[in-house]
């Protein structure tokens, strides 16, 4: 397929609208075509920029109360007086649900922001001509290389008999905090593993299972004060398998 035909599918790729087969074929093309990889990177960056810029307006407390009240007040009016007492806990629950909704909304926005940033780092690295700063398949070479470069230490799994191979590593930054960025390969897919010091509450709510985020599959967990992220266009099963190897090595 010529690059022009790929370009027609670029938006669909960035928006996660391609079928898994198409996405895998597109992903394979990106690894062999620097020009398309650069376009894909720009597409992801543009989408992320709009995502951040678009979340601009918060409703006023007055409007929030008005909407809440319109549900609460009217509900009471429509129901016999004997139900009034029964409604008190329900209204309390609704208020609690609203608070929770707002809280979860904030957490979700934070989660999306972190995911988008990591997806950017992953794509930017794949598009780069120098993907890694330490080029080695040997974990005993890669791990010591990070000493003095990141403010923590970590263990990497031994990979004999597994389909995964380690390509190398580099230092990455997530909101001015340095961390380790390792690149693994399975078949034709490159997978990024990010390790950062845990930043506490803001990341606590991140889900533990593999999930689809910003067109990629991702899994995250916390262990020994470190937050791990595994992200790539490989299947959820592959992401899960690599995560398991890392968790067992930890």
């Amino acid at each position, binding site marked *: 397929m010529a690059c022009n035909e790929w370009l027609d599918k670029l938006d669909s790729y960035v928006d996660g609208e391609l079928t898994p087969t198409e996405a895998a074929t597109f992903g394979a093309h990106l690894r062999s075509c620097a020009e398309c990889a650069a376009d894909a990177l720009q597409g992801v960056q543009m989408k992320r920029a709009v995502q951040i810029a678009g*979340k601009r307006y918060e409703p006023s407390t007055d*409007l929030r109360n008005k*909407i809440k009240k319109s549900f609460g007040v009217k509900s009471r009016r*429509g129901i016999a007086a004997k139900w009034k007492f029964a409604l008190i806990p329900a209204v309390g629950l609704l208020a609690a649900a609203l608070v929770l909704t707002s809280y979860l909304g904030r957490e979700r926005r934070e989660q999306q922001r972190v995911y988008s940033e990591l997806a950017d780092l992953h794509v930017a690295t794949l598009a780069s001509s120098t993907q890694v700063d330490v080029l080695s398949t040997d974990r005993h070479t890669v791990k010591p290389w990070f000493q003095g470069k990141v403010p923590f230490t970590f263990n990497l799994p031994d990979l004999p008999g597994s389909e995964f191979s380690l390509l190398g590593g580099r230092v990455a930054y997530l909101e001015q905090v340095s961390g380790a960025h390792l690149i693994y390969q399975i078949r034709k897919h490159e997978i990024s593993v990010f390790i950062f010091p845990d930043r506490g509450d803001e990341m606590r709510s991140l889900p533990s299972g593999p999930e689809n985020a910003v067109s990629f599959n991702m899994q995250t967990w916390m262990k020994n004060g470190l937050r791990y992220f595994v992200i790539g266009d490989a299947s959820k099963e592959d992401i899960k398998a690599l995560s398991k190897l890392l968790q067992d090595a930890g």
Partner: protein
Amino acid sequence: MRVPEDRASAASFADLALPLFDQLYNFARWLTQDKAEAEDLVQETYAKALRGFSSFQAGTNFRAWIYRILRNSFLNSRAGLKVTVVIDGEDGEILPTVSSTPESLLMEQATREIVQQALETLPVHFREILLLCDVEDMSYKEIAETLSIPAGTVMSRLSRARKALRVALSEKNQGGGRGL
């Protein structure tokens, strides 16, 4: 706003509609570009949605349904009438190609404010599709339902909207002054 006698219906409406409150307000504000009009629009949307909730088919997409109500209410409003012609017509003239790559500039210099300013300059039909896709994270199918347009039009309009945004960002850059 009148709540149906049926408590189950009112409760399920609240369960579905209230979690979307913040997002609906953000979208309304982007459409109207005015705080008071956005507040009126959100209240009108909730009132209309509640009245029409009995016609909503369980199992279908509630989010697309209520966003469609909001958007149609906007188009019928004073502010919306000004843009109706553009939305119902063609997607506009062919946009010029950008020689520079504003995305690369984004990496170095762009701020949230600059993208916001660029979004503000876009016609409503481009602004809304970018918001639904990138901010609300709607699928093409949901966007098609919300805007009542075919899926193919979603793709072409989205592509043109992104191109228009790149042009707007590029113009901001070439215009000197602040930002890009």
